[in-house]
Each structure stands twice: as structure tokens, then as C-alpha cells.
């Protein structure tokens, strides 16, 4: 039984369906493991008290011979900025530390419809603003491979909980790399889908035009499975795309399967990477060459504008999105008696963490009249430049490859006091958010016991291409190790 937490989605679903073990046994094994090791990791903010009961219900259904969903019995960790009915959703912020949503995010509803079980809500940087999960009101999350190191972020809890086998799979959100960065640091697979394929309804907005919810799993097959469950048109989100747009594209892709796949290696992103990281990328490229992919170096000149464009747009949208946290309709205990409302607002909003405050201030500044043209408008122009240049590259290449993060996981506290250094680690990942394309991070190796991931990007709606090539890569390099905890 001690091996149950190591199972992937298929292993769990088939094991339960075939009677090898019950859903209750499986969920208990995860909860036991959380109990045992999460004090070392701190991946969870809130555990779902009704998980065991849900598991029992599934077992009953199976016993009776009733049909169960395709994800029956898996235990899923949900990033704590995704709304879950009757289950606290804190955004790792004091501002929402008592907030219990009265509704489920669309992705959560879709998972529950397939009989997946929510194990709990996992840690993140406050309001998903950060790259290390050190900015959580509930304490930082540690890297399961070395607990003295950061786990990446902002979906650090999502990646660490999967890597440490405390849940089967998890959901994260990715605004500038927040799924891929921790996936890389924790040696798991994470996908940022094409903008508009997954509903954001219920995802607590940080930067609406950039972010998508996506899955994190132990392997590509799990990520593919969860992605197909959570994607699709949602009438609660006007920015979701019609289903036939994706299906049509996926269908087209199948007929291209026999064609030789062309990979471009983005020079600018390799040049900026640590030597150990770039070494790993080149050896990954050899793996692809052996798989008969065509590989060559290419250039994305607009890369230099990516970070500035990203941080301008993200902070601008954030400054507006986070304005609603005024403690009037929900929030935390702070008696408004005797305060004039403007004073009360200020008092309340002083309770954001430092990184969130920094981004609200920057975002407010770049939108203010007189500066709008200088910053926000320019950032939008850079964004369309990047989009156009990537579109051109995808005429030539099926996939673009880089490291997910230009550096190895670093020590806790190492960059926390230097926001600019911290922002630099997002340089490879923000491209996909600015242009709306899908990107995946998959484990590619280790250096001194610390994981390195590669990022594969494809043109919009080309998730199928990402999955197929990632799966081939995954089989070839065969990293099957687990962190020792």
C-alpha cells in the first residue's frame, strides 16, 4: 500500500475500478503522506475534510455497479486562487484568509463531474505574484528535492505536492510562468494552455489577459488527461474559445503526424541561461535529434522586450483587479467603527504583502494619465511585436525549445530582497503568456540533485503537438526518480 501515492492517473483509476484497492484506501494513503511529510514541504493551506467521504461514495457506486467518472478516485490539489465552494480560498493572502466562496470555478466543477476528489488547497505566492512561493501569508513552500531550496512559483504548492506524491495531479495557474517554473524546479510536467481554451471563471484574477489555469502531473499522459477534462467553451467566461476551433485544429494535426517535426532553439534564451542549464538543453536537443526531429538554432529578437512588457501589463491589470479587496463584502476581522471610509480602505489595504503592494503601486503608476502612453501602450505594442515574431517562427518551426527557467533552483531567501533579479527568472516563460500560445515544462535532468526542466512552446491551439512530442521525449530520457522524503 505504501506505493499507492506513486501511481499516476491511469494507475489510480484502473486500480480502483479493477478492485485492486478502494478509493478510500487511495485517498487515505495520500492523506497519510500529507500528514507525514507536509510539515517539511508546506504545500497545503487547507485540507478538504470531506475527501474521505467522497471516496467512500465512489466505492459504494462501484460496489453497486453504478457508472463512475473517468477520474474516479484521483486526489487533486487545487491552487488556492481557484474558487471551491464551501472550501476556503485564500490566495495565500491575509485579505482573503477567511474567504469561503459560494461557488465552484468551472474547472473544479468539471473535475468533480468526473468524480475527481479535491484533496486540498495548495500554496502559492500571494495572489500568484511571485516566482518562488516565498510570498505566501501562510509560509513558504519548500522544494521536495532539497528542502533548503525554493520550489518555484507561483504555483509552488501545486508542483511540490505532485512531486512529493501528496496528490495524484494538481491545478495551477500561469500568468507569466507560474505553472512551468515550479514544474521545472520540482521535476514534474506542467502545461500552460492556449489562452481561451480553459475557463478562468472562478480563478481569482491577477492579470486577466495573460493567465490560464493548467494541470501539473507526474507525466505527460496525466497532464493531457486533466487538460482534456478542464478545457472547453464556458458561458461564464467570454474569453473562452468555441470548442470546434480547438477540435478542428487537433484533427488537422493528426494528419500531419508523419511529417518530420521541426524544432527551433531560441538563441537569446540559451545565451542568458546558466551554464549547467544550457548544457542540459543541448543534451535534450540531442534526444530530439535521436528521435528524428529536425533541430536548429533560431532567433527571437523581441525577447528583449518581453519582461518589461509582461510586468507592465500584469501589474496594470493587477492594480485594477485587486482594488475590490476593501473588506466590505468579505475579508478579515477589522472593525470599521469610527473610521471614515477612505481611511478604512487604506487601513485594510495595508494588509497586502510587500510584493503585492509593489505590483499594485507599479500598476497604478503605469496606467496613470500622462504615463499611459509611455508605459502601458508601449507594453501593448511590444506584446503584439512578440506575437507577430512568434507567429513568423511557427511558420518555420513546429516547436520552440528553451529551458523553462534560465537558472537552477536556488536557496530559500537568496533572491527575495532583489525583485529585479527575481523577475529575470521569468524571461523564458512570459513569452507564451504575452502571445497566448501553449507551453509545457517537462523534466530534462538534474544537476547536483536539483531538477532542470525544458520548455516546449507550440503555436496556439497546438497542444496536441506538444503532448505528442513531450511524450516521446519523456520515454526517451526516462527520468523515473522520486525525491527522498
Amino acid at each position, binding site marked *: 500500500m505504501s506505493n499507492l501515492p506513486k501511481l499516476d492517473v491511469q494507475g489510480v483509476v484502473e486500480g480502483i475500478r479493477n478492485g485492486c484497492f478502494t478509493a478510500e484506501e487511495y485517498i487515505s494513503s495520500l492523506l497519510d503522506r500529507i500528514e507525514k511529510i507536509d510539515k517539511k514541504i508546506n504545500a497545503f493551506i487547507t485540507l478538504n475534510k470531506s475527501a474521505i467521504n467522497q471516496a467512500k461514495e465512489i466505492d459504494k457506486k462501484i460496489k453497486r455497479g453504478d457508472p463512475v467518472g473517468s477520474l474516479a478516485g484521483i486526489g487533486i490539489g487545487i491552487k488556492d486562487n481557484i474558487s471551491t465552494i464551501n472550501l476556503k*480560498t485564500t490566495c495565500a493572502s491575509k485579505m482573503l484568509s477567511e474567504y469561503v*466562496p459560494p461557488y465552484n470555478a468551472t474547472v473544479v466543477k468539471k473535475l468533480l463531474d468526473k468524480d475527481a476528489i479535491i484533496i486540498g488547497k495548495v500554496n502559492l505566492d500571494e495572489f500568484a505574484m511571485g516566482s518562488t512561493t516565498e510570498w505566501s501569508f501562510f509560509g513558504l513552500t519548500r522544494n521536495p528535492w532539497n528542502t533548503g531550496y525554493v520550489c518555484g512559483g507561483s504555483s509552488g504548492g501545486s508542483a511540490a505536492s505532485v512531486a512529493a506524491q501528496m496528490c495524484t495531479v494538481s491545478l495551477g495557474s500561469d500568468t507569466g510562468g507560474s505553472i512551468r517554473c515550479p514544474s521545472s524546479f520540482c521535476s514534474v510536467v506542467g502545461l500552460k494552455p492556449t489562452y481561451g481554451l480553459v475557463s478562468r471563471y472562478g*480563478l481569482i484574477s491577477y492579470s486577466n489577459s495573460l493567465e490560464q489555469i493548467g494541470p501539473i502531473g507526474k507525466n505527460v499522459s496525466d497532464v493531457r488527461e486533466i487538460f482534456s477534462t478542464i478545457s472547453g467553451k464556458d458561458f461564464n467566461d467570454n*474569453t473562452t474559445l468555441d470548442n470546434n476551433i480547438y477540435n478542428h485544429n487537433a484533427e488537422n494535426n493528426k494528419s500531419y503526424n508523419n511529417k518530420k517535426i521541426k524544432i527551433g532553439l531560441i538563441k537569446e534564451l540559451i545565451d542568458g541561461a546558466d551554464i549547467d542549464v544550457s548544457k542540459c538543453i543541448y543534451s535534450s536537443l540531442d534526444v530530439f535529434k535521436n528521435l528524428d526531429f529536425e533541430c536548429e538554432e533560431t532567433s527571437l529578437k523581441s525577447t528583449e522586450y518581453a519582461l518589461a512588457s509582461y510586468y507592465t501589463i500584469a501589474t496594470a491589470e493587477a492594480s485594477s483587479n485587486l482594488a475590490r479587496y476593501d473588506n466590505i463584502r468579505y475579508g478579515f476581522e477589522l472593525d470599521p467603527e469610527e473610521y471614515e471610509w477612505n481611511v478604512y480602505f487604506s487601513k485594510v489595504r495595508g494588509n497586502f504583502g510587500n510584493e503585492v503592494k509593489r505590483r499594485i503601486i507599479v500598476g*497604478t503608476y503605469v496606467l496613470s494619465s500622462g504615463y499611459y502612453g509611455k508605459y502601458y501602450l508601449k507594453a501593448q505594442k511590444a506584446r503584439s511585436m512578440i506575437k507577430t515574431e512568434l507567429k513568423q517562427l511557427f511558420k518555420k518551426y513546429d516547436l520552440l525549445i528553451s529551458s523553462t527557467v534560465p537558472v537552477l533552483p536556488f536557496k530559500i531567501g537568496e533572491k527575495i530582497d532583489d525583485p529585479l533579479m527575481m523577475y529575470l527568472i521569468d524571461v523564458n516563460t512570459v513569452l507564451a503568456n504575452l502571445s497566448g500560445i501553449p507551453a509545457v515544462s517537462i523534466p530534462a535532468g538534474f544537476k547536483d540533485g536539483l531538477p532542470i526542466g525544458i520548455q516546449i512552446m507550440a503555436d496556439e491551439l497546438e497542444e496536441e503537438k506538444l503532448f505528442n512530442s513531450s511524450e516521446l521525449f519523456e520515454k526517451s530520457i526516462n527520468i523515473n526518480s522520486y525525491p527522498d522524503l
Partner: protein
Amino acid sequence: MVLPVKIGLEIHCQLTELNSKLFCSCYSNYRGKDINENICPVCIGLPGTLPILNKKALEHAIMISKALNCKVPEITMFSRKNYFYPDLPKNFQITQYDSNETDTSIGKNGIVFYGNNKKTRIRRIQLEEDPGRLIFEDGRQQALIDYNRSGVALVEIVTEPDFTDPKDVRLFLNKMTSILEHLGVCKTDLEGSLRCDANVSIGDGKKVEIKNVGSFGDVEKALTYEITRQQTMNLHEIEIKAETRHWDDKRKITKQSRSKEEEEDYRYFLEPDIPKIMVEEKYIASLQIPELPDDRKSRFINNFGLSEHVSQILIDNKELGDLFESAVNIYHSPVSISNWIVSDILAFADYDSSGKKSLENMKINANHIAEIAKLVDNNKINRTTAKNIIGKIIKTGELPSKLINEKEVTIITDEQILNETINKIFEEGKNAVVDTKKNSNAINFLLGKVMMATRGRADPKITMKLIKQKLEQI
């Protein structure tokens, strides 16, 4: 020296005829509901919720744009206006105005004709969401917030500063009200469904914004006051500051808002949760625009032979126009029906909150009016009787024919009955009868006597004929 005046208006019109709010499925009709009963996660801005655009609201906004002769751009978009206020759940308002973009409105560059050949240009028209409402309770320091109204669809109509006279503003607002009523997008008599802010400046002076004008009727008063204030200040060479002033309904003056009004920075940017919307010409063409006041007026004049003046009164208030047409459908006598409505029924009507006459509290309907017109036309009752009856119907809603039978008010045309009365009068007033021999005017005295005896019911023509016959017999 009296300087030339420039006035521009910002009109907010609630789309009261929608079923749901602008971005969620809560009821558009929030009136009369318990506090915070008409809310959902979207319209109170709970974390993670997203706005879902009400397509019907877009349709109504386009209809308004067309009716005001605006251009509807091919692409329309939404933007955020950021400011903190407790009645605004997201602390930003989703609107279509964006100081950084040029083409976000649903309608622009329109024109409205009103009065006698007057016109005002429309700068832009935009859809936006109404905030909630603050409730201040007497004797308490706190305000309570009711979000029932939060997210209700508003259309803002911004005019160019083309007005020079508050009287014209009044005429324009009448026309605007009538257009919105005829479009069927706004029940303008609902309290708060139609609001108006005004900008006033004199000469090349600074612009003063007047807010909080409760009814359209007061806009003219507020403007007249404000212009006098500015002209007086100018006369005394006191500088007029750019500011926002509130209309004090009790004292009938404008006064400086308590909050200091520095130029607020709304940090507009395009709303990322609502993608740009293509408005195809085909779609616009497919929208059915109901008959508008100007066309209706022409029809009243041409098809029904009504006067310009009467037609104007009937179309200025859609309720009157509709009442007229229903009555004409029952009994086709347009001129007399229009006269009964305009000169008699309207005299009993009260003014509603938007400053126009309302028939809401009257129990009179088209059937009543048709019947009265018919009774008078057929000489069954005279005009004085008809007026008395109208006064009663308005309160009771009884049918005229019923009232007539009860009260014996029909005109007496039966010669036998009339002769009996005349005989009696001749008996009683022998002197008067003798007088008629000398003075032909005395015959009117006899007629008057008969009318008195019949309480005005005697048909005057027949009676006169009978009196003359009788006199000849003597």
C-alpha cells in the same frame, strides 16, 4: 456684460426593459426588492467572477444610437474606469468610455432635432453598469450598502455643448424622453431610470458640472440658477473655478460639493475580460426600430388631420399617443378624441418624477374616451356634461354609458317631453311671453328657463324651434 452660455448634457438612461443586468443573470428590475436580495457573485464582484455581456443590452444601446442618428462603429469595446467608492463592488466600473482610446463607444457623432428646428449634436453613447446604492439612515454615522442595483445596464448619452438656453434643454429632454419611450428601452417614469448631469460655462470660462439633479424638470431650474450665478460672478470679476456642484433640491440652488474635486485619474484601460465585439452592418440593419416620435407626428397630422400643436403634445408623451391611437381604433373620430385628451383629460394629470404629465393614477382608458367622444358626436350628451363625467371616470373608472343612465344626463330631444316643459314655462312666465312681442331677445330668456328646468339636458336647437312655434301660435 452678459457672456454667451454653453451647456452640455450627460444623460444616464437605465435599460429598464431588459430581463437581466448588464453582466449577470440577476433581475434588471431591482425596484421593490428586499435589500441585497437581487445579487449574485458576479454583480457583487466576488473574487474570480467574470462579466458576461448581455446581448440584449447591446441591442438596446444600438437602437438608441440609431434613433439619435449616431454612427455605430464596426468594433465596440469595454473599458475599466478605476475609482474607489463603497457602492462600487469591484472598485472599478465597466464602461465604454476610455480617455486613451478613440473608438470604444457603441454610438458617436449623432444629432437630435427638437422644438422648432433646433438641433443638438450627440458626442457619444456608451453602455455601462450602474453601481449599488448607499443608504444613509437618520441619526447614524454609518452608511449601509444595497447592491440590488449594482450591474444594471445604463446607457450614457453625452451631448456636445450646443445649448445656450435652459429652456431649450427642457425641450430637448422632453424629446429625448419621448424617443426612449418610443424605442421601448426605458420606462422613464420609474424613479431614477433617467438622470441628467449638466456642464455649464460662460464666455471662455471654466466648465462647471452640475450633478444630483433629481428630475428632468429641475434641470432647467438648476441651469438657470447656475448661469445667473456665473454671470453675477463675472460681473463682479470673481474667477469661476472648474468644479462640480450639486443641486440642492430644497433650497433650489447649486452648491459646491463637499468633497474636494481635484481632477480624478480614472486610469482607463480596455477591459480584458470582454473581448472586442464586431457589430456587423447586417446585424444593425436587422434590428427593428419602432416608429419614432417625429414619424408618428407626421402620421398624426397626415392621416388623422390633427393640428401640429395637438400632435406635438400627443407624441411628446408616448402614453398619450398610445391612448389616442387605442381610442381611435375603437371609435374613429381622431380630431375629437385628440381634443378630449389634450384639452380635458390632461388637465387632471399630475406631473411625475421626470417632470412630465402622467396618467398613471387615472382610471380612464381608451374605451372611456372613445365612448365619450361618440356620445358627444351623436349629440347624446353636451360638452359640459362630458367634462363632468370625465372628472368622475378618472377617479372611478366607470363607463360613461353607465354614468349617463344613472344620472339621467342624456340630451332630451323628444319633442313631446320638451313641449310639456315649454308649456309649463309659458304658464309661469306670462310676462316674458308678452315681452317677446316687443323684444326678440327675450326668447333667449325663455330658452334659458327651459334649460334650467331640464338641468341643461334639453337640446337647445329643438327647444328653440318649439318655442318659436309656440309663440307663433299665440
